[in-house]
């Protein structure tokens, strides 16, 4: 294993985003940090298969995504029946990453199928292109696009953001603007 400074720095630089991705996937800060740690260990073990100069974040995201899919899903299912556990953990950790402010989104994300959740986070929050997200998830670009669309639709449904009436302030602003114009 050879860990030069540039490699170490690029891994360090990716950690905040890896954590955000892991927390978005798992909904649990501690589990997410374990997942990030495993990802780093796995990456360093296989560092020779990483081509210097290529996309380090995408490579690390791929490892994390595959780890989550293989191990963490099983664990998640074990605790899924404990309803309300997630909300309780939020209340007891006000300084933690997942804040009450985002509880509605968290709950909605949790109801998405894994493939839709990861797609909408990678494209909508991590800022990867459809092409990069497709490479990370090992599927076709068109598949990612349709997963993102389905995920957005489902989130809108679950969070009752399905028409303009639910965007109160925006709607009022628009009404004011249209009055001004007349």
């Amino acid at each position: 294993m050879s860990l030069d400074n540039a490699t170490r720095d690029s891994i360090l630089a990716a950690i905040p985003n890896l954590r955000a991705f892991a927390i978005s996937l798992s909904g649990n800060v501690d589990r997410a940090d374990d997942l990030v740690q495993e990802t780093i260990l796995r990456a360093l073990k296989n560092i020779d298969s990483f081509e210097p100069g290529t996309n380090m974040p995408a490579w690390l995201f791929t490892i994390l995504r595959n780890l989550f899919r293989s191990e963490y899903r099983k664990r998640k299912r074990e605790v899924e029946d404990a309803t309300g556990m997630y909300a309780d953990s939020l209340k007891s950790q006000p300084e933690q990453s997942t804040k009450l402010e985002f509880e509605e989104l968290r709950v909605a994300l949790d109801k998405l199928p894994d493939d839709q959740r990861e797609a909408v986070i990678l494209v909508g929050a991590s800022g990867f292109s459809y092409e990069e997200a497709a490479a990370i998830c090992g599927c076709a670009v068109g598949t990612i696009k349709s997963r993102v669309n389905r995920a957005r639709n489902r989130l809108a449904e679950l969070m009752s953001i399905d028409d303009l009436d639910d965007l109160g302030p925006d709607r009022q602003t628009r009404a004011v603007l249209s009055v001004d114009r007349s």
Partner: protein
Amino acid sequence: MQRTKDGEFTTGAGLTREATIKIGQQLRAMYDEVVKEGVPDRFTDLLKRLDNQDRGGEGSHS
């Protein structure tokens, strides 16, 4: 469901543009909360430890 040719949802049966934007904003806001926390000590320590092992155990010799 109606879509424009580039796959974006149009008003009607699908999502409004405003709804799509709102979901995107919320996703990013939640995500950025975590990104802003930077790198917890746990991970800088981990990399330091691994680095030392790598250099012949200067941090891990008995």
